[in-house]
């Protein structure tokens, strides 16, 4: 019996023992990441250990992105802790504000996470990098401390659910709509502890940003990782960025999948997740009138350059509705600069949007656009739990960048064709 891509990659990272789904393995780690929320706990753990010997100092990135530029004194103290730790231990990849961005956009962009890698990160959306054809999963701060001490991580080898998509996507539907539709179909339970492998002709046609969007939300299904086999599009994205050699792996034709689901997506319309779960998804045409107060375009899900471009095309020459705030946040300095150069930020500014610096910001109700009681937002991000973007009595709807932009103009959740 053959192996899935996930089993194969994990197999390359163990020195002994069988890599079979359901078994615990001890695997060596290629790259790690932690942020201004999770790294302080890791650092406290390590600093409590007398003479701790830390490994892999050139295999970890510390990215202050959640509450930065520091939103208050406590956040500033946390980033100080990261900065000092990076300096004391000679950590190669510490990203200072100005060079930092949302970690899951920054690391692929910098060529630090690569096809064939085993990547762990103290952030649940570490699964984003699976779009490059690596096994990448979110862990906790203690896991990261353990991996820094031992170079390894314990993992239960996951079973894989194969998801196969056919059909050409209609205008105004993207990877975001594919993943929202899939979350609705899978529900919250089927994928727990499992791997999701996205396959099929529709996936082969997606550019890297849309592939990142899909793998980013694998965790919303409860999955351990999401993964897409690498191809020429992957190669094109990574070849000039990669900081290390990399390898492409594929599932064997006789690999064992715990389940296969097939979707014909040629008639799919834009999807919207309603409060308070990313799997509470409806077709946009079934929504009715939903007035909004705020729109957020950004995050590691849909803040990619191509996403900003899609939103700008929808909004060009129009203004944000009177009662609406549109917040646009390019997630990394590179995306910011490219959007600036190509006139995309100007389109948003002319539409009377506010443009924030690279940060997670409002995505987690952190800063730069927190919601008050009773307020409603539509966001291109990945979560809409109770209180995710602010007050417990606020509501978040999730959608693709075109829907978010159209909604900002119309003042209620709107199909992009209404304004184009």
């Amino acid at each position, binding site marked *: 019996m053959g192996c899935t891509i996930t089993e194969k990659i994990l197999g390359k990272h163990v020195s002994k023992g069988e890599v079979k789904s359901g078994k*615990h393995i001890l695997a060596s780690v290629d790259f790690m990441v932690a942020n201004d*929320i999770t790294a302080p706990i890791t650092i406290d753990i390590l600093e409590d250990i007398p003479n701790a010997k830390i490994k892999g100092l050139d295999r970890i990135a510390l990215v202050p992105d959640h*509450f930065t530029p520091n939103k208050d004194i406590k956040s500033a103290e946390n980033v100080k802790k990261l900065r000092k730790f990076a300096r004391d231990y000679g950590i190669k990849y510490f990203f200072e504000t100005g060079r930092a961005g949302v970690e899951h956009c920054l690391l692929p962009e910098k060529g630090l996470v690569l096809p064939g890698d085993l990547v762990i990160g*103290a952030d649940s959306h570490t699964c984003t990098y699976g779009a490059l054809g690596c096994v990448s999963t979110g862990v906790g701060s203690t896991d990261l401390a353990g991996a820094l001490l031992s170079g390894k991580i314990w993992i239960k080898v996951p079973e894989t659910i194969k998801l196969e998509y056919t059909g050409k996507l209609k205008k105004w539907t993207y990877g975001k709509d594919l993943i929202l539709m899939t979350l609705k179909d899978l529900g*919250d339970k089927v994928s*727990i502890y499992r791997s999701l492998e996205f396959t099929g002709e529709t996936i082969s046609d997606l550019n890297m940003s849309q592939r990142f969007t899909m793998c980013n939300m694998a965790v919303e299904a409860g*999955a351990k990782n999401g993964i897409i086999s690498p191809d020429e599009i992957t190669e094109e994205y990574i070849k000039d960025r990669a900081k290390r050699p990399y390898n492409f792996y594929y599932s064997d034709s006789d690999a064992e999948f715990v389940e296969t689901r097939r979707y014909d997506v040629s008639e799919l319309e834009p999807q919207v997740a309603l409060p308070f779960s990313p799997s509470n998804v409806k077709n946009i045409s079934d929504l009715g009138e939903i007035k909004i107060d705020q729109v957020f375009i950004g995050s590691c899900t849909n803040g990619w350059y191509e996403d900003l471009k899609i939103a700008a095309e929808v909004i060009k020459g129009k203004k944000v509705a009177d009662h609406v705030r549109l917040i646009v946040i390019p997630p990394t300095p590179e995306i910011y600069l490219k959007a600036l150069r190509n006139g995309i930020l100007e389109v948003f500014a002319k539409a009377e949007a506010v443009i924030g610096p690279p940060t997670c910001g409002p995505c987690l109700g*952190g800063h730069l656009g927190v919601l008050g009681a009773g307020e409603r937002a539509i966001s291109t991000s990945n979560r809409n*739990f*109770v209180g995710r973007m602010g007050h417990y009595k606020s509501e978040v709807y999730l959608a693709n960048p075109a829907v978010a932009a159209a909604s900002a103009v119309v003042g209620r959740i709107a199909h992009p064709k209404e304004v184009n």
Partner: protein
Amino acid sequence: MEMIIKGKSWKFGDNIDTDVIIPARYLNLTEPSELVKYLFEPLRENFASMVKTGDLLIAGENFGCGSSREHAPIAIKASGISCVIAKSFARIFYRNSFNIGLPLIICPDIVEEIEEGDEIEVDLKRGEIFNQTKEKEYSFPPFEKLMMNLIEHNGLIPYLLSGKFSI
């Protein structure tokens, strides 16, 4: 870590996510004694002040879904809660809890039948739960070797440092 746990039960529903366990705006805190003040704030303010050491959390499906924040199990453990019993757990929350020595038990039957306030006793080694209030016994599958070792060593780091770590 004690292998016999006794305490009162506190009951929660399905899909309790980490934003509810500890809202993101408190994540600039790292001290357990600080975090614990905001435990379950969106659902039950001042929850930790009502908990007695040894008490247990009971929850439905997918407890701990959402972010990887270890602040969630840290705050639960700091409140004195000794163990969580649920129908199912989210993956990262599951490993984070064992990694800090907080045992989690999957036992749908007791979750269905228990009422908040019931006194229960758990034998972690034997895989038995006794609802003293309702005088009813339940069993759960024994922990896998790695998970038991993590509980016995009170978490991953002490286990790694003991030099005995094995899979």
